[in-house]
């Protein structure tokens, strides 16, 4: 099976390495060091004032097969969201190349955009507008026709457990879990070949989390959608993903099936190895440790 996503030696950093801020009135306490993703909090008072450099994605390479659920597991600030944004044409890589279904994300962004959609950790909507108004807007941007889309919106939102009454009220009146379901509905409406899910269940209650996970599984099985899922939930990664890349400080430190990853590390005190044990052994710190 041909890969749906190809990531080749991608590098992305924020901030310029030797950019000294010449504007005295904009000078702030900044670091001189090149920090890995999420880092850069150190400060040397005697050093010249330079802008902090954060390496978010550090020469990452992998392939996602068509119809696969590919997990990217890592701590906050590990570079997962940056990677998703690079694939989604929302960031430009400093080096390396990314192809989605054969199209280059930098040279052919329009073709890539027709094939993908994304659900981010924060449900971004016009909060004063209703779910129907928001989704109709999103669907029309993908060239979908209004009348048929309205019917489909009601059907999808109903399937996601939203009451018919609620779908015409402003989004600001909905819980975060409900808003996240609407975000998933927005992505489903455009029928993407590749779905990028950036921590879609973070902050959801256990029931909503299970419902969202069921939808992800259903999408893969029924529509054959290729899904790239980032998470820092070990159980979720194990439950959903065919393969998992463990990412830390912008680098992929391991990539295999959940079973394959567990074989990398012997179980503590003869117990069965968990993904958490694997992560701890490979990175030297627990997953919930803020970097």
């Amino acid at each position, binding site marked *: 099976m041909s890969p749906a996503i190809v990531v080749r030696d991608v590098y992305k950093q924020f901030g310029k390495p030797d950019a000294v801020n010449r504007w005295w009135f904009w000078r702030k306490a900044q670091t001189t060091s090149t920090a890995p993703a999420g880092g850069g909090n150190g400060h040397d008072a005697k050093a010249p004032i330079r802008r902090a450099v954060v390496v978010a994605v550090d020469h990452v390479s992998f392939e996602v097969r068509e119809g696969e659920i590919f997990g990217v597991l890592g701590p906050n600030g590990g570079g997962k969201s940056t990677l998703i*944004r690079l694939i989604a044409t*929302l*960031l430009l890589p400093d080096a390396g190349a990314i192809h989605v279904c054969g199209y280059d994300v930098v040279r052919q962004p329009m073709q890539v955009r027709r094939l993908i959609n994304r659900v981010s950790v924060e449900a971004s909507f016009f909060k004063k507008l209703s779910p129907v108004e928001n989704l109709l807007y*999103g669907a029309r941007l993908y060239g979908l026709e209004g009348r048929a889309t309205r019917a489909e919106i009601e059907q999808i939102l109903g399937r996601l457990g939203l009451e018919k009454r609620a779908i015409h009220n402003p989004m600001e009146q909905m819980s975060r879990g409900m808003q996240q379901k609407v975000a998933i509905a927005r992505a489903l409406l455009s029928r993407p070949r590749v779905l990028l899910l950036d921590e879609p269940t973070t902050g959801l209650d256990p029931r909503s989390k299970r419902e969202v996970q069921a939808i992800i599984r259903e999408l893969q099985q029924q529509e054959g959608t290729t899904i790239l899922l980032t998470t820092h939930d070990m159980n979720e990664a194990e439950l959903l993903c065919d393969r998992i890349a463990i990412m830390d400080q912008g680098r992929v430190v391991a990539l295999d099936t959940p079973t394959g990853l567990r074989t990398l590390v012997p179980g503590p005190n003869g117990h069965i190895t968990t993904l958490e044990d694997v992560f701890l052994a490979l990175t030297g710190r627990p997953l919930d440790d803020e970097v």
Partner: protein
Amino acid sequence: MSTIVSLSPSPSFWVRQLRATYAFMERNANLVKRYWSWELVWLCYSIANALSVSYIGLGMEQLGAGNETINGRYLTLYLIVGTLVWHFLSVIFYWITDVISIERWEGTIEYTLMAPIHRLTHMAGQTLFAVLYSMLFNAVILVVAVLLFAIDLSHADLGAGLVMLLAGSLSFIGVGIMASVLPLLFPERGSQMTHVIIALMLLVSGVYYPIEVLPPLLQKVAVFSPATYVLIGARAALLEGAGVAELWPIIWPVLLMGLVAIPVGLRVFALAERYAKRTGKLHRNG
């Protein structure tokens, strides 16, 4: 290397772009509907503002009693036209820049920029709505002004005035697209920075006074403001009944400015979008 997937041929490119254009118009209309009370407040403010400026005309007549050179009626109409034209152009400008600002705050800008649409389609939808909304908004102010000041528009060429306004709106669309770069790159202060642009144009364009009263340097700057021409043309059409043929020497420079300003605006926006994607300025968190 992955295999290239053939993209589905339907709907056609143009149908998709048209639907996307409509998406922006419908979304902005929905925003007006949801914020209707604020829009009403803004309309009341605009009417009060237009009237208070226009009353200066009558006030000058009274203050200069005995001075036959002051024609209060003419001065009032002069100020009303200036106020209406300025409202029309600035509402277009602010709709273009404010929606980008709202999108930054709501975090939806990433979804809009991730959609498979051309930036021209994006801006066309924004600006079509802005022009229609501005026309409706100003029609209400005009009706109130006509009723209150008993303005006689029987000698006015309303059609020529409208042509002048629409020609001028093209330039303001271009300037608006350029200015929308500010909230795109600076979500906290970008929106306020757009006020500087509009204030400078207000100063030099002769909205409430002829540009001849300005210092020579500002008069030279006024030549580059499309609003200068629109105001001269709209006053000629509404106060002196000048037709489109008479106004043509003023219309063509404005059209030319618009034809330059829109592509330049799109180019500036594309450069800013690229810069934002290179430096990671599109997202507010995560």
